[in-house]
């Protein structure tokens, strides 16, 4: 097909009118590329079409140009580059925000767990401390008891200690008591093996017989008698010991008819 035939085919006119499918348009473009003289021909067709449009022109209202220019200027402000950047940075911000929230939640959960553990540990420490204090007190008590017991034991085993057995008298033949008396230290300890419970308002009282006369050696509190040995008043010399039942608080002289046990110090 030569140029004249191609021009006569009407393909250029169809192209100028925007007709034909993509394939046909591509074919025309290929022809235009290889035959530059066709371009002038197409330009002429387009120019005549433009003139035809001009001949049908309708002048727009006076205000329309201003509106169009305002719309263009408005459009210009939002340049695509800025829009893209804004979008990208906002996407980045979104990521950062999401990451921050995740980290914050993680941190909160971590803190909560740690705080919980801390509370537990704190409670344990307090419990241990109070237990330790309790044990220390206990230990002090036990030590004191041990010290007392070992003192008593060493006192009892001392060669200077005399054992005085107090035997039941006719009022209460079953009753028994024991006195440990150290002549060196003058300490007197008493152990009650068996005595009837003291009636209300009454109390047992120990007496030391010194030079034939009874001397008050202390009250015997049976209710608190968990210790084997009770420390009584000290005596440097005594010939015998005896227990009588007296009014609570004790008497200045023994009630002889209420004597339960008695024993003489062996010489």
């Amino acid at each position, binding site marked *: 097909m030569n140029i004249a035939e191609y021009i006569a085919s*009407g393909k250029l*006119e169809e*192209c*100028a*009118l*925007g*007709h034909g499918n993509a394939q046909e348009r591509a074919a025309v*473009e290929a022809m*235009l590329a290889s035959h530059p003289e066709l371009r002038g021909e*197409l*330009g*002429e*067709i*387009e*120019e*005549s*079409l*433009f*003139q*035809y*449009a*001009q*001949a*049908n*022109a*309708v*002048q*727009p*209202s006076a205000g*329309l*140009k201003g*509106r*169009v*220019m305002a*719309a*263009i*200027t408005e*459009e*210009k402000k939002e340049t695509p580059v800025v829009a893209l950047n804004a979008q990208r940075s906002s996407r980045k911000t979104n990521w950062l925000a999401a990451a921050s929230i995740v980290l914050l939640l993680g941190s909160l959960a971590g803190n909560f767990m740690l705080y919980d553990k801390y509370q537990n540990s704190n409670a344990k420490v307090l419990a241990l401390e109070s237990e330790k204090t309790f044990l220390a007190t206990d230990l002090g008590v036990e030590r004191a008891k041990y010290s007392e017991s070992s003192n008593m034991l060493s006192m009892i085993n001392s060669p200077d200690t005399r054992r005085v057995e107090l035997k039941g008298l006719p009022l209460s033949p079953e009753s028994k008591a024991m006195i440990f008396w150290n002549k060196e230290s003058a300490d007197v300890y008493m152990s009650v093996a068996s005595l009837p419970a003291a009636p209300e308002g009454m109390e047992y009282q120990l007496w030391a017989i010194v030079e034939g006369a009874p001397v008050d050696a202390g009250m015997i509190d049976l209710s608190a008698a968990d210790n084997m040995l009770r420390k009584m008043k000290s005596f440097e010399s005594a010939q015998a010991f005896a227990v009588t039942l007296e009014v609570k608080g004790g008497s200045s002289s023994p009630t002889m008819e209420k004597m339960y046990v008695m024993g003489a110090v062996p010489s």
Partner: protein
Amino acid sequence: MHLWNFTLTIFRPSKALMASRTSYTEEQLVSTLQSGRADQFGILYDSFSGALLGVIMKVVDNRDVAEDVLQESFVKIWQKRDTYDASKGRLFTWMLNICRNSAIDAARSKHVKVASKIRNIDDNVTSVNRKTSVSQNEDAIGVATIVDSLLPEQKVIMDLIYFNGFTQEEVSKELNIPLGTVKTRTRSALTKLRETFKQGIV
């Protein structure tokens, strides 16, 4: 009337034809578009708004709607300015396609009656003449000659194809004319337009 216009065209050739775009060449207009300078866009508006509104008004028969479409189309032209490829055709052809598509969309969405589609030949001819006489100033008397240079049946086909974007097949169905006849008339109309145009610039 016809003869009078024709005579005027011969004696006052290209002045009127080129009146609306005397100061700018195609290249200048293209570089104005591609410069991306909003303040220069008025040049394109001044050069093409009348012709484009004429096209739009062939599709939407309501002036307010048509002006809205024109404004919207100029914004699209501005937005799509980087996609225009001068090697594929004239700037006006590209702009016209944008306007025509916008006008067809508007006509569909706004249920505006698509102008001229249901008109008979005589109506269409009067319509074109009326619009032309309304819109043209005395400088454009010669332009009217181009329209008048076409036979009425050529004009109808040109309007449907060029302004309304009909394919030749659609025109054939619309006007109930054989496709071959439509093609012949299109060709003859374009040839006639070119001849008239050439006479004008001689």
